[in-house]
């Protein structure tokens, strides 16, 4: 009998990674659990969404039930240096960064993958809802999850062939409800936990308070202007607002007003009526193509501008310097610099990049 293939599962104590481990065991792999201990603000460790002492205890319980070893790996410093710094620097520059992208690229699929490989594992598996396939040339492809409502390909568009060669996503073929059912059948003490969301290192806290503590200069009041440059009020600092936001502007107006864009140069928050919201043209840079090669430009494809957004059609033109422009078929209201624009050929995630500020276009 040939040697069993070894897989390290990134465990969180939650239902998805627990069931991922269970499925891999059923598939005959030799399974080892690893749990990342990520950064929390000093004194707030218990609030972290994914690696509290309680979550670690949960993961240990699950591992004991499944009969797999579990090791907790410290990644606090590297997480802070890459992910948290990226988050803070992004807000300091006036964009709305997506730290999960960096975490997946630098922490899970670099730091943790290296540790899994050092353990002589063949694969690293996560509880992400995506599917892995290969094209006719043997190149790996990321496909949207069977459960579209849970699909996490948006976040994983940062992966490349080298990493995907070692990747396993066991729950991508399942509905979330099936995953919960498997957990229940196996008696895993995770089946009824709510889904995790938001940023792990913020815990239950509003990101604004975190920003104020860590980069006090984000408190930087300035004018709220309409498209004509007329002053309607005052904002507390551009970092505290998101594109498309309606509530909390503190302006009395006969019609609802929305945040349309942030003008960093004037430190102005530009607001407008609903019909003024939405743009069709955007630019993205720091591109990653999952296949390793860019598609032939220009081309038409589906585009997702947020992890929860519906894909929409657009025409894409590649530029020099790992960037591209997208002209969407219809305007979208919440195109946000700092988030990713991810490009799909039907079910296949081709890749994507970080949306730049409109001023750059």
């Amino acid at each position, binding site marked *: 009998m040939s040697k069993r293939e070894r897989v390290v599962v990134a465990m969180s104590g939650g239902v998805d990674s627990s069931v991922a481990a269970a499925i891999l*065991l059923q598939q005959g792999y030799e*399974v080892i659990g690893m749990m990342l201990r990520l950064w929390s603000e000093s004194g707030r460790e218990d609030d972290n969404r994914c690696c509290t002492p309680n979550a670690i205890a949960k993961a240990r319980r699950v591992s004991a039930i499944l009969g797999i070893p579990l090791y907790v790996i410290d990644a606090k410093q590297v997480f802070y240096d890459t992910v948290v710094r990226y988050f803070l620097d992004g807000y300091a520059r006036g964009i709305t960064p997506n730290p999960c992208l960096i975490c997946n690229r630098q922490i899970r699929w670099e730091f943790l993958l*290296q540790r899994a490989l050092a353990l002589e594992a063949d694969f690293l598996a996560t509880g992400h809802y995506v599917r892995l396939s290969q094209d006719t040339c043997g190149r790996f492809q990321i496909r949207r999850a069977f459960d579209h409502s849970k699909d996490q390909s948006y976040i994983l568009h940062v992966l490349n062939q080298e990493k995907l060669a070692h990747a396993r996503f066991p729950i991508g073929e399942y509905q979330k409800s099936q995953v919960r059912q498997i957990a229940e059948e196996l008696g895993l003490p995770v089946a009824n936990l709510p889904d995790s969301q938001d940023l792990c290192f913020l815990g239950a806290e509003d990101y604004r308070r975190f920003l104020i503590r860590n980069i006090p200069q984000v408190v930087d009041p300035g004018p709220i202007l309409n498209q004509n440059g007329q002053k309607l009020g005052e904002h507390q600092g551009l970092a505290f607002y998101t594109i498309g936001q309606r509530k909390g502007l503190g302006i009395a107006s006969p019609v609802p007003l929305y945040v349309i864009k942030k003008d960093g140069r004037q430190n102005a928050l530009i607001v407008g009526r609903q019909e003024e919201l939405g743009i069709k043209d955007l630019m993205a840079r720091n591109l990653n193509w999952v296949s390793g090669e860019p598609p032939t430009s220009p081309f038409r494809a589906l585009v997702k501008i947020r992890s929860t957004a519906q894909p929409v059609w657009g025409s894409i033109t590649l530029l020099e310097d790992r960037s591209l422009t997208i002209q969407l078929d219809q305007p979208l209201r919440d195109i946000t610099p700092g988030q990713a624009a991810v490009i799909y050929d039907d079910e296949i995630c081709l890749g994507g990049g970080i949306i730049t500020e409109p001023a750059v276009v």
Partner: protein
Amino acid sequence: MNNLSRRKIYLDYAATTPVDARVIETMMPYFREVFGNPSSIHEFGQQAEAALESAREQVAKVLNCQTDEVIFTGCGSESDNLALRGIAFGARLGRQANHILISPVEHHAVLRTAQQLAELHKFELEYLPVDRYGMVSPQEVEKRLRPSTALVSIIYGNNEIGTVNPVGEIGEICQSHSIPFHTDAVQAAAYMPVDVKQLHVDLLSLGGHKFYGPKGVGVLFVRKSPEIHLAPTQTGGGQEFGLRAGTHNVPLITGLAKALELTQVEREQRAENLKPLRDHLVGSILETIPDSLLTGHPSQRLPNHASFVFHNVDGNALLMMLDVEGFACSSGSACKTGNPEPSDVLTAIGLDHDWALGSLRVTLGVGTTEKQIDQFLHVLPGVVERLRRLI
């Protein structure tokens, strides 16, 4: 137990030991047959009390002390807590003493307790210097003794680095100045003599599970003497001469006593079996692994104990990789939560960050064989090599 169907070799006897079959046999009747509460008046209670007092006699005999100097506790850490808090508060009440003297390489049960006494109760905490092996010099103790010294506490055999302190000499000095002297002998008791008269100690802590006894039971020896006054830290029904309230855990206490008695008899033979294996292990590792150091004293150390640091190696990852290879070891301190802080002990002996984070403790015991050590030596260099490539 897990899906990695491979060898499982235990090399962490300093963390805990399996209970000796003879000890289990001793304990068995006291779970169901003789289950009474020793404090009860009736015959059930009297039988349990007889077992308890017989266990106390066994322990007293090994410690070479009186029976009323043996206090049963819940574990070694509890013994340390009772010793430090009890003496500190007692000495403050009795003679206004406010000064606590410990080494910087104490087990956390002593270190954290002393630190809390300093922080919350305003005792003055002073650390003795140690040499690069983590050893305390008796002269340094003598220099620092004051009339206001409430307590001196120095570890007997170090859990992390294995160094054995000259407890007897330090004890003599403290005794001549009439200053209470406590030693944490939890790690040492499996291999070192624990005759309290020879050691000149006033208080000594033991934990059952370190010498093939059960977990959940410990001993604090407290010398009967006008100078030694303990304030109880756990109050209640007045058990254990009023020093440790709580219903006696008779089965575990009988188990501890039996295990200690067996250790007394077999200690030297056990050491004789393990020392050559340990020396082979140390020699081979230092020879085959570049940038490796033995931590702790080369000769004045526990005979089953080997501890190392490897330059630029992630110690937690090392333990994980060894476990996957089938070897259960430790870094010297329990850091299961993955905190990469260098240990207080390794910092105290002057190791910098790049060394101190790469620590490994390999401790042998009754089940250890030459073959196991050879298998370990076969695997370790490659694992260290792989980890160095990772950083």
